[in-house]
């Protein structure tokens, strides 16, 4: 047990240090990134030699239309299209826990005309390790994790449980009686298992109820069908009249509900630190071999996308729709994905029992 706690402390701190950056870091990041990439911009004449892109660019989305992934992709079409001077389309290929869309993307010509918006963590982890989807992280060049969700813990608005502390007490008082809803294979699904393990409770202490997507899950909490739910916080804000947030499972509090403490804040007196993976990572991705095959195209895509994310007009528009416009860059994005995978690997045995 001590080994696990030590590990969890380290990685939790790692994640926290990364996520504690305030939202206003974009402008600062942009400055530093612009300085770093000025050398790359000097290769601009190469663009003139290659007239690419001349054909429409497609962004494959591996979920249904209207969800967070799709919204993010669609927010990018207009600015990318006006910068490239060609149409940019979104194609939704949902299903099979993101396997269908991701495989479809890999099956397209690796020429820069097809981009992907998908969820490297935790979905690809499941695809690779559980469904043997046949692809690996190295097949992709992850430009940027643009939008990361936090896990919120919610109770029905009429619940007698008023705080996370009370929830933990209630779970311990009535083992096997409380029910918790999660979306299957989401970050919350794994965070549920990790949280119970950190609280030294067996998985059977809580009745885990799995949902296909977050909308019916939120309806079930709102209707008092579940004792509590762990669900992506961002999408739940519109339903705060029907369900009450009692904790955030993340490195920092959520700016949308600043009064709600994090799980680790509440558990600090007990000396417990709960590990977690981000709720959902939404990233813009290209084929890995684009770097060798079409270096100019890759550079052009990368720089244009980065410019869009630095554009105040885009940021304002995206934020209005609840879409984040974070810039982590390829290295930091990959590091965060690997950190999440490391956590999932560490709890593999436990999570397989979910």
């Amino acid at each position, binding site marked *: 047990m001590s080994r696990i706690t030590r590990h969890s402390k380290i990685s939790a701190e790692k994640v926290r240090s990364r996520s504690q950056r305030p939202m206003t870091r974009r402008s600062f990041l942009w400055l530093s990134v612009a300085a770093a990439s000025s050398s790359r911009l000097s290769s601009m004449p190469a663009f003139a030699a290659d007239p690419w892109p001349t054909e429409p660019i497609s962004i494959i989305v591996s979920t249904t239309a209207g969800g967070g992934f799709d919204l993010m992709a669609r927010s990018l079409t207009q600015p990318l299209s006006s910068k490239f001077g060609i149409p940019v389309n979104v194609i939704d290929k949902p299903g099979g*826990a993101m396997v269908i869309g991701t495989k479809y993307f890999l099956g397209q010509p690796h020429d820069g005309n097809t981009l992907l918006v998908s969820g490297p963590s935790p979905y690809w982890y499941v695809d690779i390790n559980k469904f043997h989807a046949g692809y690996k992280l190295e097949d992709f060049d992850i430009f940027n994790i643009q939008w990361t969700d936090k896990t919120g813990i919610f109770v029905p608005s009429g619940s007698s449980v008023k705080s996370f502390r009370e929830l933990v007490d209630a779970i311990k008082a009535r083992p096997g009686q409380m029910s918790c809803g999660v979306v299957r294979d989401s970050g919350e699904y794994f965070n549920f298992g990790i949280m119970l393990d950190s609280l030294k409770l067996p998985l059977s202490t809580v009745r885990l109820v*799995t949902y*296909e997507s977050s909308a019916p899950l939120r*309806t*079930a909490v709102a*209707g008092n069908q*579940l004792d509590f739910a762990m669900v992506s916080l961002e999408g739940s804000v519109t339903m705060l009249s029907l369900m009450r947030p009692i904790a955030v499972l993340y490195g920092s509090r959520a700016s949308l509900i600043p009064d709600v403490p994090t799980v680790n804040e509440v558990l600090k007196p007990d000396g417990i630190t709960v590990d977690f993976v981000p709720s959902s990572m939404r990233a813009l991705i290209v084929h890995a071999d684009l770097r060798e095959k079409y270096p100019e195209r890759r550079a052009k895509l990368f720089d244009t996308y980065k410019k869009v994310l630095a554009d105040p007009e885009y940021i304002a528009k995206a934020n209005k729709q609840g879409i984040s416009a974070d810039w982590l860059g390829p290295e930091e994005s990959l590091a965060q994905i690997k950190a999440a995978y490391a956590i999932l690997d560490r709890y593999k045995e436990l999570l397989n029992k979910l």
Partner: protein
Amino acid sequence: MIDWQALQSAVHILAESYTAWLLIFPGIALGMIGGAIPGVSSALILAIVLPATLWMSLLSALIFMTAIYTGAAFGVAIPAILMGVPGSPAAVATSFDGYPMTQRGEHNLALGLALAASTIGHMGAYLILFLGIGVISHAVLRLGPVEMLLLMLWGLTLIAVLRGRYMSRSLLSGLIGVLIATIGLSPRDVMRGTFDVPELLDGVPVVSAMIGLFAASELFNLAGNSYLVQRSDLRNVNVREIARGMVDALRYPVVILRGLIIGATIGGLPGVGAAVCNLVSYAETRRGDKHPETFGKGNPKGVIAAEAGNASSEAGSMATLLALGIPGGASSAVMLAALSLHDVTGGPQFLDSSKDIVYAIILNNFVQGAVMLVLGLGLIGLMANVIRIPVRVLIPVILVLATFGSYSFSGNIVGPITMVVFGFIGWFMQRHDYSVPACVVGLILGGKVEANLLQTYQISGGGQISYFLGRPIALVLLALLLFSLFSRPIMQWWRRQRTTNVLTKA
């Protein structure tokens, strides 16, 4: 009861979106014409126009589709009255008295009766929906996975029990639909029945399968005939006579009201739909009449009862669709697909967050009723000509349209292949009296049935009885489910017992 703020916002939305208004006319006309062609169901027309709704706003799409629904609800009565061939199962009871009236030379009168009954039934039922949707929206939150599971199973068994000649075959059809729906990734993350075909990873494309099942089962059937209308003299249409029939219908308010209430309640039950409403409404009117023997021989009340029943079922099935996310029949199943194309899952959340859109749909449907009255009067003469199209031209045209529809839906050849495969399955089922609608409802509800079954198991702590005992709604639904499944066999057994008793005593 009425959310005035949402109502105000609904009026505002409607005032701003002129396309939504413009779509009423083509929608109703398309529905009426399609409904008037036997073998073309409103579900089929909706499935064909479904890809086109991708380019509309959510409200426009829903208004267009409800307009088609509205038009088709009356359209199906036209061939039922003129030729004794119902345009769809929804007009079976209409033909009972409508056709004898035609034979007596009263076809214009009968058409007028049907049009008026349809319109009043439609508007009245939407009024009930308008007043009750607030209550529904709070009541539906009380439905957990257990209740949803039982509700869906009840819907599946009801459609099997009330439709088709053989209950066992209809139940089997529904079960086959459910089994087909389990292909792909299961709610427990298990890959099933894909035979390593990557296209099946996410299951059988439901809409393409549905187009195939309906189009083929109904059109192939029709191909056996060389004509739609046998006697050309039946196509004489006199608008003044039709108008007289419309006024005549107002003389039977009780019959209309009864049909309206039956339609609004039974039409709302998942999986039952208009086909049952018109039969129940007809049966009830006949049972309550002083001269039940006059029914089936050209009694105007029979036409009115049947039409009021099937027209008001639209509002009923829209209520379950919007409030529960459950299709009440094949037509609303297509609408559910349209909703998901706009990334809206009907259900409590939709009702809660988009009440203005729901109100806008209801308000628009009052207007649709009025439009139908005018359009119906004008279009009946025109539609008689549509029925003159030879079958050998009509069938290929519709099949080509359906193929395009399924292709544009899936974006690849998987759609058309699915359509053709399910076309053969549908044709085979129809030929051997296996209920196609039951299979379609099974196919559509299958995934939800399984997900809710899993959730029921999880939430009850592995199926602990105490959980179910604490849920009265679930127990009532369970009783209804068992009743609909076993009432007929038990009644039959009881009757047989009684007959043998009487015989042995004699």
